[in-house]
């Protein structure tokens, strides 16, 4: 390999066919005279701009089995092998990730290595990991890199952080988020999963269908089945959020509801039945009464609320159970949009209450396709206010444009799977953790179950990893019509 060009933090390296360099590989450009080296990452592999190549290809296109021109070369000096060698030489477009000055890493890339003297070599992942000194006190093994090195991140790199797992359908996003969730559980962390498709419900079972070590730690809560709550367990703020944001209750009606709620609360009669009676008998405008009634019946029909104390679940107790490692999987499958929003408002409201009261230290929240149940105002809340309370969110989505730009900018870790759509790539490239070119170029060519990791978990050295298999019932597969028939 030879150093060809440096423009800004982009380096162009000439590589020859025998060197077998691919996108995502790290290269070390060592200048022995300066005792310095640049650590660069290949973000694109192009053909070298060889003069006369077009003429040669055109000439060769007339020559072959399927054409009417056949022939042979008498080339005793074997010049043709050199021609092929030059034709196949490539240009590696690399981004500078760090500088190595006397063995110490620094972010500076202000110096220029010698073009003629520099020695360029491939940097194995294991050497890179040694250089960047990854902390492995609480390791999470994600899988293997291309050079078969095991890649571990540290659980602390997810602690207090905002993470995004994104990629197109069937590339392995849910698989990775399950791996992260189970690893956090193993390290004693409490995890809450807002499970849109019921994929996490069987994490307590191995691939063979038998119970695994997570069986007692994974608690699946299915709304209106084993997850019902009594109104008395709700704070006024939470029920108002449900009414206003999930059920679109107007402001005037919300004021009347507040009075009704306080009235019932003072009398310790907060039940569905009493609430209905109170609305019926409350002295108020008929339109307000109608509005309150329609919301009341929505709450009633959701099946999520109950007056039966034996059916009512204490979410606080559930959180206590997972305090030292476990997951609450809120199964939102087969739940309508409105009911889903009611449940999420309740869970998040309760979560913030518990965290505010210091009853919970912190919680890792996994939100799949959050745009389908999270109200608009929650996005900012999650990345700013709730984060300070101790809710550390991982968004999982295959529609990157449903996550707002400011979320990408503030994300600490991005786990990026394959995208081919330009619009999706453009959206994802707004993540502040790496330049847009890296994201667009590498993510486009990622094979299935390969993930480009960006952010603090890899100390801002983007790495491609093949996510390891999980011995759990993942349930993420799409139900097929023809498979069942066959």
């Amino acid at each position: 390999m030879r150093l060809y060009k440096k423009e800004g933090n982009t380096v162009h390296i000439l590589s020859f066919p025998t060197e077998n360099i691919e996108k995502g590989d790290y290269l070390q450009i060592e200048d022995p005279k300066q005792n310095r080296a640049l650590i660069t990452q290949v973000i694109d592999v192009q053909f070298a701009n060889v003069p006369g190549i077009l003429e040669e290809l055109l000439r060769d296109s007339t020559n072959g089995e399927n054409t009417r021109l056949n022939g042979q070369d008498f080339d005793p000096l074997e010049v043709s092998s050199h021609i092929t060698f030059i034709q196949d030489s490539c240009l590696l477009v690399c981004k500078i990730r760090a500088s190595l000055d006397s063995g110490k890493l620094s972010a500076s890339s202000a110096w220029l290595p010698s073009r003629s003297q520099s020695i360029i070599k491939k940097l194995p992942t294991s050497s890179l990991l040694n250089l960047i000194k990854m902390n492995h006190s609480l390791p999470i093994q994600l899988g293997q890199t291309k050079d078969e090195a095991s890649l571990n991140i540290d659980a602390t790199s997810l602690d207090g952080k905002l993470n995004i797992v994104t990629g197109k359908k069937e590339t392995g996003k849910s698989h990775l988020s399950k791996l992260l969730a189970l690893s956090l559980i193993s390290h004693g962390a409490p995890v809450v999963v807002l499970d849109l498709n019921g994929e996490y419900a069987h994490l307590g079972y191995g691939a063979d269908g038998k119970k695994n070590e997570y069986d007692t730690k994974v608690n699946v809560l299915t709304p209106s089945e084993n997850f019902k709550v009594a109104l008395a367990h709700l704070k006024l703020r939470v029920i108002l959020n449900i009414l206003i944001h999930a059920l679109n209750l107007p402001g005037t009606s919300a004021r009347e509801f507040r009075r009704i709620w306080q009235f019932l609360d003072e009398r310790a009669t907060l039940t569905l039945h009493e609430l209905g009676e109170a609305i019926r008998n409350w002295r108020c405008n008929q339109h307000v009464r109608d509005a309150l009634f329609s919301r009341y019946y929505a709450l009633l029909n959701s099946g999520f609320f109950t007056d039966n104390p034996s059916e009512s679940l204490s979410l606080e107790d559930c959180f206590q159970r997972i305090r030292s490692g476990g997951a609450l999987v809120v199964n939102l499958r087969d739940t309508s949009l409105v009911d889903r929003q009611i449940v999420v408002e309740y869970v998040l409201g309760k979560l913030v209450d518990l965290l505010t009261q210091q009853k919970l230290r912190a919680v890792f929240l996994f939100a799949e396709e959050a745009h389908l149940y999270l109200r608009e105002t929650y996005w900012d809340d999650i990345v700013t206010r709730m984060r300070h309370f101790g809710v550390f969110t991982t968004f999982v989505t295959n529609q990157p444009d449903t996550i707002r730009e400011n979320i990408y900018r503030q994300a600490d870790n991005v786990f990026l799977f394959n995208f081919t759509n330009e619009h999706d790539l453009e959206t994802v490239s707004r993540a502040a953790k790496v330049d847009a070119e890296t994201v667009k170029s590498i993510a486009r060519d990622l094979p299935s179950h390969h993930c480009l990791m960006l952010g603090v978990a890899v100390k801002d050295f983007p790495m491609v990893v093949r996510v390891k298999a999980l011995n759990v019932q993942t349930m993420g597969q799409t139900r097929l019509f023809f498979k069942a028939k066959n």
Partner: protein
Amino acid sequence: MIQQTQYTPTTTKYNFPQSALQDTALPIRFIELSLRSIKNIANQDATLLYQPYETLSENSDSAEEITPVFHGQTKLRLNFIPLKPLPEETPVVAIDVSSIKIGETTTGILLAIRGAIVWKKQRHYHFLRIGPFPFHITEENKQEIYQLFRQYSLDALAPNTTSAPSLIHMQTRITTLLERWLQMNIATQSQNTLILWDGSLTAGTNDSPTHLITQLLETARNRLNTVLAFTKITRLRLSGHRLTDLIEKCKPPCLLEMDGYPMTPSNNIQFLGNIYVAKLTQGNCSFRLDIDCKLPREQAVEAIQRLLANDQLSESYPETLRLAHIYSTFTANEVIAIQRLLSQTHGIKTITRPNIRRLLFGPFGKGPEGG
């Protein structure tokens, strides 16, 4: 069984394609000489090769055309011969040779040479490429190289009075000599074939001695072959008129025959072919076409008509000859490949000479070095 010859560790065994060429003596000597001349540079103290600025300007077409002056007519008379394809299966063979300057050394020049033969038989085109052969030509070895080419190019039949030309002209000279050798091989191995040459049938120059061209044509004739020589760019004029312009009025395919006889600008120069202007297809191009003058006129015209039926023509130019040119021509990448070969096998490094024109005239420094 052919003896497999191993010349150097880097030169692997080879089988010369017997089907195309029977006389393999020159290629074998070529390799030997090529390797010996290259080793000659490697043995020098400084194994530096200076990249020439005119690397990509090939010299294969550099021989200046000798144009005849037509006498014996008082006014301009144009004799148009309409042509009709003669659909009789006839093989068509074309030969072309290219050379290119790879660089300069402190003692000489390094050039590469390659020949191509393309033939069409039963509606299929075939090619044989010979080379490239790099040569390091110095004042010391130029005589040896020149004599080798002369020996294998029938030039040896002539009295050996001429010494090797200056280094500047060696490239053109050995290119022509290889071309003549290939032409002779084809002439002796073919029968009833149309043989297409790139250039004219003008003889009597250093590159094309009369006795050599005469013998080439005679060999071809004896084996019922017809040599058709196409000159791509001609300055042929008749009474001041450019002949290739005059044929525009004629409906192709047709030939334009000169009414008169050609006079040479020098006593030594001889035109061994009848000179025509050929416009064989619709389009803008027409070419000077020389046909062996010892052939009866009817046979010459018939040969063109056979060509029309047996080869594809584009812009009046035969496809076999076009392919021969394409296959022999060097690309910039091939020049780099040869420089790489020399660097790898003999440690010869190529460096670029300072650009004198640029140094002196800055942005006004144009020309071959100016870029």
